[in-house]
């Protein structure tokens, strides 16, 4: 372990870093304790890159996404956009929210039931005082695949299908001509046959507009479908990150291996016992050691790292393009 640098200039070949989390920590008070929801994360999203952030509920992925959006203030560390640290003054934050946009899981809930499609899409341009509102709305709707846009202007959310609603939410984000889209489980509440279309839309927006995206999901198949890079999060930290092909076909961290093994098609399952862990009680040593199948099976002991697993903290993974895993056992073979 010599990598102690916590930032990077470029992420992947051909991608200059656009949005970055540097040594980010976010803590909340939770029932009298401190929940370390994000506990030291370096993550970079390059221009035109789609990064999938994968993990179970409670691992801190949504908090990380919200912090990147500036909706949550980090306890320490920083969010860096285009080389500049995010400024939390309301003016600067408002400007930032023109370039980084959010798409939430539940499109029905993300749209005010009292607002028409037109009003929903025009909300951003109105907040930022953009001129030519009607053209912007029409353009955004057709970019999001709702054509002809005029037909949708006066519809209310409840008159649309789930897929159409999510397109309206995406159009609302596109209306501000953003550079980065942060999508939190963008297809989880959609019908199976519609999911692919929405994902294809994200890929098309990247191709047409050069839009970068951070897609937060629990679904590894989704990461395989659209992401260039994937970061696997466990208990507030990224435990493995790298190009999708590498991480998802040859995972090195036992947690990633377990996640992949429980997919319906995989040959041999590693079902982790116990419930998703509690961010108010992060174990010492490797934070995964209590559930780690490599440690439990004795392979870690054979390799002589079991003591390290239980007691020695791992360094925070740097935000580099190459595949990395935060695991004492995996380091041996690296």
């Amino acid at each position, binding site marked *: 372990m010599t990598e102690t640098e916590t930032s990077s200039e470029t992420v992947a070949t051909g991608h200059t870093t656009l949005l970055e989390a540097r040594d980010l920590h976010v803590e909340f008070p939770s029932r009298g304790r401190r929940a370390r929801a994000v506990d030291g994360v370096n993550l970079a999203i390059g221009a035109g890159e789609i990064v999938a952030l994968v993990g*179970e*509920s409670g691992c801190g992925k949504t908090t990380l996404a919200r912090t990147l959006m500036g909706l949550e203030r980090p306890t320490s560390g920083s969010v860096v956009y285009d080389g500049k640290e995010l400024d939390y003054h309301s003016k600067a934050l408002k400007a930032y929210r023109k370039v980084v946009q959010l798409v939430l899981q539940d499109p029905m809930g993300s749209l005010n039931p009292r607002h028409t499609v037109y009003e929903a899409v025009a909300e951003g341009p109105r907040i930022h005082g953009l001129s030519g509102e009607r053209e912007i709305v029409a353009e955004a709707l057709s970019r999001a695949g709702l054509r002809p846009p005029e037909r949708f202007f006066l519809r209310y959310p409840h008159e649309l*299908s*789930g*897929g*159409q609603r999510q397109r309206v939410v995406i159009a609302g984000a596109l209306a501000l001509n953003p550079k980065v889209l942060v999508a939190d489980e963008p297809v989880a509440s959609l*019908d*199976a*046959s*519609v*999911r*692919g*279309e*929405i*994902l*294809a839309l994200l*890929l098309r927006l990247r191709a047409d507009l050069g839009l970068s995206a951070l897609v937060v999901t*629990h*679904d*590894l*198949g989704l*990461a*395989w*479908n*659209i992401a260039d890079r994937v970061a696997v999060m466990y208990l507030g930290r990224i435990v493995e990150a790298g190009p*999708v*092909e590498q991480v*998802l*076909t040859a995972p090195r961290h036992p947690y990633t291996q*377990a*996640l*992949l093994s*429980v*997919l*319906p*098609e995989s040959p041999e*399952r590693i*079902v*982790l*016992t116990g*419930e*998703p862990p509690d961010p108010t009680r992060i174990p010492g040593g490797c934070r995964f050691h209590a559930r780690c199948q490599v440690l439990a099976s004795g392979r870690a002991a054979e390799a002589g790292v079991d003591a390290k697993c239980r007691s020695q903290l791992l360094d925070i993974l740097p935000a580099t393009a190459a595949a990395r895993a935060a695991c004492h056992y995996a380091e041996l073979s690296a």
Partner: protein
Amino acid sequence: MTLLELDDLSVTYRIASGEVPAVRGVSLKLESGAALGVAGESGSGKSTLAMALLRLLPRDARVGGRILLDGEDILTMKWGRMRAVRWAEASIVFQGAQHGLNPVQKIGDQIAEPLLVHNLAKPDQAGKRVAELLEQVGLPAWRARSYPHELSGGQRQRVMIAMALACSPRLIIADEPTTALDVMVQAQVLTLIKELIAERNISLIMISHDLSVLADVCGQLAVMYAGRVVEHGPSREVFHEAKHPYTRALAAAFPTVGDPVSRLAPKGLGGDPPDPMDLPTGCTFHPRCPVALEECATLDVGLWPAGDSRTAACVHVRAKEEAS
């Protein structure tokens, strides 16, 4: 031995603005100890089907056809007999594990309730039975003293399964039992369900929109679209070599990680699931079908044999069948 048989089951909801045909003539068979997966999207009628099996539909629903449980028609059963069936022979696990439990009652009491109501256990023995049930679903016995909010989502779903098992039913109907759960917890719950059906000879009807999960747990798979079964057969074959274009689309919606075909190529269907009040003419799938022919707009193809113990409702399947 056939445990459950649906014969031309139809369910129509009557609402203010007209009639909504939710299930339109479904015939299925479930052998004792077997597992049948019913796949479909919202509005496909799969949840209505599940509710109809135990006559849990609202009063404005009109049910036609027959549902035979051990040869006895559920639809014409007396109310008292129906209640007995609901507890003792078939039980249902809903998707919303959060809402299925009473928040102000200890889970042990909730599991024991049907046992006491039906005199299946004396109050002093109920605690022991509850402990057994909790153990079967992989929860420690002391959890009986917990309240629902003290449990995680996965644990609550286990409690729901324990409740379903309480009266030793022969049939369990699981409606999206893992939808709201994390992958790892989902795997735990699915493993549990698989073990239960294997060890205790319980039959299972599992309803989900995720074809890969159904193919994993169930031997047979029925795919529903707009209130009808459009494909039926052994689940692995249906999942891997779908004959109906809709099944193909559903299967592709959950890609296999590592499969180069789906890499950076998400696949979906254009259009939206049909409105049951305004179903397309001909084959209900034709407006979204990538391989539709001109005749599909007018021709409603029923289920055709599509290989060994398989059926599919598609004009292409029929053409192949007629050619051979």
